[in-house]
């Protein structure tokens, strides 16, 4: 066992799939009691990194310790101490919630005498008591996610990995899951959360790492990262044939920022007070502004500034 007190430590972790470098030398340290957000678009390497940290994949090189044990050398020790809810909530639709919890309890070596109590506690915790004896195939997406979380908690893990836990959920289910994650964290569970949703990372994580193309491009507290971007972003939409003229005007007020297709963005060096000047200059250049909005720095700006492109699903 590693004497390090940090529950998750990855050092120069690399994973190849054939010639493709899915994870490119990442370093992560997650402190006890933190919610650590791993933010990135689809295919950035988040899930591959989590699969290595949870012993499902071997690192091509580099080392990682989770709950004090090396993931490659002592995988069973790691497995006994972590809870994992994977991306697709892979739950057997033919079994009932209770049956799955009891199976999971056996897999984690929970004595028979405690199984029923523990299963009932968890079903109550995630609000599935009434549906406990229904087959999982009849559950909604949100119910499946909550059951998945309950399954991950069966052995009271000290470290919890949640891989895109709210992807595909409606806003209500998402909020309810966030609440549960906060509650678990308040009870002392360290959480590593991967997400492609900016709001999720912003709302939940104490610290985040932004990953793109297998590399961590930024890491820190969300507020520090946003403050680092500095200026607010002015977004405008103009007729297509006036785009070049608009760009020339905007460039005099700050650095152009990547935006969704059809709009232009500029980091306003002078802050929001120069917006009227920008509008006047655009008018003088015969640019007709169809839409205008000002955004304070967001994690999306941090992502865009670090990678040169916006995060997919940022508005979800």
């Amino acid at each position, binding site marked *: 066992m590693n004497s390090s007190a940090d529950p998750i430590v990855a050092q120069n972790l690399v994973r190849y799939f054939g010639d493709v470098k899915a994870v490119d030398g990442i370093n992560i340290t997650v402190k006890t009691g933190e919610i650590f957000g791993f933010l990135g678009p689809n295919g950035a390497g988040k899930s591959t990194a989590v699969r290595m940290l*949870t012993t499902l994949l071997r690192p091509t090189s580099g080392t990682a310790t989770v709950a004090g044990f090396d993931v490659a050398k002592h995988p*069973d020790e790691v497995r006994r101490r972590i809870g994992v809810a994977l991306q*697709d909530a892979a739950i057997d639709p033919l079994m009932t919630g209770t049956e799955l919890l009891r*199976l999971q309890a056996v*897999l*984690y*070596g929970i004595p028979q005498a405690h199984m029923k109590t523990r299963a009932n506690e968890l079903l109550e915790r995630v609000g599935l008591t009434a549906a406990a004896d229904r087959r999982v195939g009849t559950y909604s997406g949100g119910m499946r996610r909550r059951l998945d979380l309950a399954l991950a908690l069966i052995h*009271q893990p000290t470290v919890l990995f949640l891989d895109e836990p709210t992807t595909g959920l409606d806003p209500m289910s998402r909020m309810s899951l966030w609440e549960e994650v906060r509650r678990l964290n308040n009870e002392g569970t360290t959480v590593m959360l991967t997400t492609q949703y900016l709001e999720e990372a912003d709302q939940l994580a104490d610290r985040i790492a932004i990953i793109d193309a297998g590399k961590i491009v930024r890491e820190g507290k969300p507020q520090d990262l946003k403050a680092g971007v500095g200026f607010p972003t002015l977004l405008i939409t103009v007729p297509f044939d006036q785009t070049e003229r608009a760009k020339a005007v905007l460039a005099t007020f700050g650095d152009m920022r990547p935006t969704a297709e059809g709009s232009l963005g500029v980091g306003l060096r002078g802050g929001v007070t120069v917006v009227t000047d920008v509008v006047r200059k655009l008018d003088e250049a015969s640019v007709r502004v169809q839409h205008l909005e000002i955004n304070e720095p967001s994690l999306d700006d941090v992502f865009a500034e670090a990678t040169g492109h916006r995060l997919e699903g940022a508005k979800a």
Partner: protein
Amino acid sequence: MTVATSNIVIETTAHSRQLSMRQTIAMAKRSTIELARQPALIAPSMFFPIFFAVLSASSFSKTTAIPGFPKVESFMQFALASTIVQGVLFGSVTGAAALATDIENGFFDRLLLAPTTRTGILLGRLAGSALFGLFQSAFFLTVLVPFNAPISGGIPGALVMVLSGGIVSLAIGAIMSSVAIRTGSAEAVQGAFPLLFVLLFFSSAFFPRETMSGAYKRIADINPISYLVEGLRALVLEGFTFSAVVRSLLVPTVICAAAILFALKELRRKLAAL
């Protein structure tokens, strides 16, 4: 050793053998529940063999007079053994396809994330197949014996036939599970099914080898399915003799042991490649 995570105490190495057994039984229970809850999936493996047995008994009743055909009460009596083998062949594919589905949909990852023995994951699934094979064999005998298909070996012979059916199911389940593990695709497992059907067709399942000739006989002579069927058939036609019992259990046991070793090797290969 025990691991305390908050107030839950987890059994680990102190009772590791008992725990592994508990885990394997739990996984066998799951695969049995799965099968029982998909009647549409298991019905063909229960009723098609019966249908084939009834059809062949009515169509080929006169073939029992062909020289070389063993002395039987009816063609149904001759077909009893092949019905069991045919049924468990069909049934075992269902179990292996379910394993492939677990791999496809990520449930297999959930099992791998638990501190269980890796062999337990496979053996649990195979134990479910074996239980289903036992059930199928008992079902076929219960339905067909009253139709002039007595078992010379009596009740002990019938029990050995049921046991043998379970072992055959385990063996075929292990072979098909290797396909499931290698491909991770339920379609690939279902796609391998016609191969089993061809093997069954080119065996002594439907006619005795003594009545065959040419290439058909040469294939049947080297086809392991012939020996599986003939072992069971010995209990039906010869009685509860030492030779019949050994033949009905030895061949499937040898094939089963080899198939399980191969499936475990496939599993180790897959896990090493992760």
